[in-house]
């Protein structure tokens, strides 16, 4: 009856998994320090994050999973779903003990759940590629503030880096309050304290916008209204593909 806590990072979680094997305990629950539940009679143990231990577990996972699916556990972890840690833990126990690869055993509820959650995270990352809209600011920076459901900005940085290799851009996660800044060479994490943009819609203050920005947004809006075929109106289909929660970031969906 042990509840294991960790610091909320992925490395911390992998360390916890390592320690479970090391001390031969099967925990009742693994939870992040932030979301710790108070159990009256349970034993508690907290493990300090140790990169080398985490690395060993990660390598072990990589050896067992197929190349196509090797990020499965990481993506599922990113979902931050309640109770995902125990599901991953049970999955890893099976993964390490079986001789053949169990990642396709969808009859197992844990495997299926992890696959589906990691798909949700990947889908959210895809939505970043779809619905990020840059605004050109006076200092030549292309800025976008957005609020993904999961912490997926680091997953899409490499794609943006390949695509916009010759422009400076900043992708800012409004909810988690950090961003990735690319300076035509490499991307790095930044936190902005003095914000010149709305922390709700990610809209940059007008006095910082580049001159042509308004013009392009206007052109884009009119393009968007004119490419629509009125006779085929189907708002339900539109909403299905373009969730409401993204509308406030899209220039074409504003007023």
């Amino acid at each position, binding site marked *: 009856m042990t509840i294991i806590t960790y610091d909320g990072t992925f490395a911390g979680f992998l360390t916890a998994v390592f320690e479970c094997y090391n001390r031969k305990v099967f925990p009742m629950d693994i939870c992040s320090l932030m979301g710790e539940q108070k159990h009256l009679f349970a034993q508690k143990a907290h493990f300090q994050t140790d990169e080398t231990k985490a690395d060993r577990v990660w390598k072990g996972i990589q050896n067992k999973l197929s190349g196509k699916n090797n990020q499965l556990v990481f993506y599922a972890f990113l979902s931050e779903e309640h109770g995902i840690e125990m599901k991953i833990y049970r999955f890893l126990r099976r993964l390490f003990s079986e001789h053949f690869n169990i990642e396709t*055993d969808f*009859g197992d509820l844990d495997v299926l759940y992890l696959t589906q959650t990691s798909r949700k995270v990947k889908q959210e990352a895809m939505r970043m590629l779809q619905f990020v809209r840059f605004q050109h600011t006076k200092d030549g920076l292309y800025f976008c503030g957005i609020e993904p459901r999961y912490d997926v900005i680091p997953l899409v940085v490499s794609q943006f880096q390949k695509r916009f290799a010759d422009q400076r851009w900043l992708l800012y996660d409004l909810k988690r309050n950090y961003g990735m800044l690319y300076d035509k060479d490499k991307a790095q994490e930044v936190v902005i304290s003095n914000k010149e943009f709305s922390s709700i819609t990610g809209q940059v203050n007008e006095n910082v916008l580049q001159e042509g920005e308004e013009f392009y947004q206007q*052109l884009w809006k009119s393009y968007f209204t004119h490419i629509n*075929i009125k*006779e085929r109106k*189907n708002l339900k*289909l*539109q909403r299905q593909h*373009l969730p409401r929660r993204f509308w406030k970031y899209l220039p074409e969906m504003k007023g």
Partner: protein
Amino acid sequence: METKTVQQRLEILSDAAKYDVSCASSGSNRKNNTKGIGNGVACGICHSFTEDGRCVSLFKILMTNHCIYDCAYCANRRSNDRQRATLTVEEIIDLTIGFYRRNYIEGLFLSSGVIKSPDFTMERMVQVAKKLRIEENYHGYIHLKAIPGASHELVHEAGLWADRMSVNLEIPTEPNLKLLAPEKNYPAIFSPMTQIRNEILASKEEVKIFRNARRFAPAGQSTQMIIGATPETDRQIILLSSGLYKTQNLKRVYFSGYLPVNEYDKRLPALTRPPLVRENRLYQSDWLMRFYHYKAEEILTDDQPFLDLDVDPKLGYALRNMQLFPVDINRDDYEMILRIPGVGVQSAQRIIMARRHRKLNSEHLSKLGIVMKRAKYFLTCNELPASITDWTPERLKHKLITGAISKNKKSLDTQLSLFGNYQPVLPPIH
């Protein structure tokens, strides 16, 4: 003549371009290895969705909507009194790059009305693509329309700069094309199509030998047909598109439900709403051919000219071939599992993977995302067998339709129903 602003011309030309259905930005993984702008993503990315639910992936624009042709089905025909506009090569490039840098679009789809001659038009379109690639160092997606009648050299050059090429067939049979567009003919359409096919195949061979050989239209070619403007049957259309996939190696055949753009023209049918359900059923059949290993002849038999608008073609096939079912999820091969109504490609692949580990039952299946409401009549799993023999196709069809009506009918049905509020006197059997 007064001059129009860029915005006005953009409005006119995007209005004119909206009838081109093609929107795919997939199939090309062009790399950005010169530190320029843009790259291709093989799966394609949709950046926005308009009110009609169609995706905006590419910046779809006509270079000009002036046209020397007078095709009855086209909104930009010569004899129409419409506002006309032209964007210069530089303006198109600026707009594309400006939109691309802000991540509004995935690339450019450039088409055009024919001005002066096909060659003159094509040359300017090629220029746009070439300048984008060379001067702007742009590696994003470009879809170029090949103008029927353009010279071989220009089509060849277009393919070298573009990712995808397309030639629109527009009308599925030649006599009807002659009727509606007397200035066009099939040879002029098929000659660039065949040329593009041959060059794509040749370039693929070349790339096998020289890794750095220049690729010709790496995302392949597509075409488009208007549905409902002429009296062709669904069977004709499906056989034609399956033929095109085989002989011309097309990536996609798009269908465009006919919109009454030129109501005064008596050669065209009078429609109040576009035939959206029919278009949807044709796309479903298209998917069956491309992803579900169906043959065109299986989707519609000889005595069936039209697709059933009430049920999708896959369910229609299953109902006609009840002797093939039920399929055993735990034993039968992939091809048969794909044919179960309610099982998609992904689900079928997951079933194949999952059943290696354990026998699957219906609970597993519904968790895997299979629509058991429909599928349960056509499969057996690790449980008591389904009682399919009790169902005649007619009764089963009736049951499945009435179950699905509330969910799907509203969004798809475009026709007023005559017996919408009809209540049967006798209670239904099921």
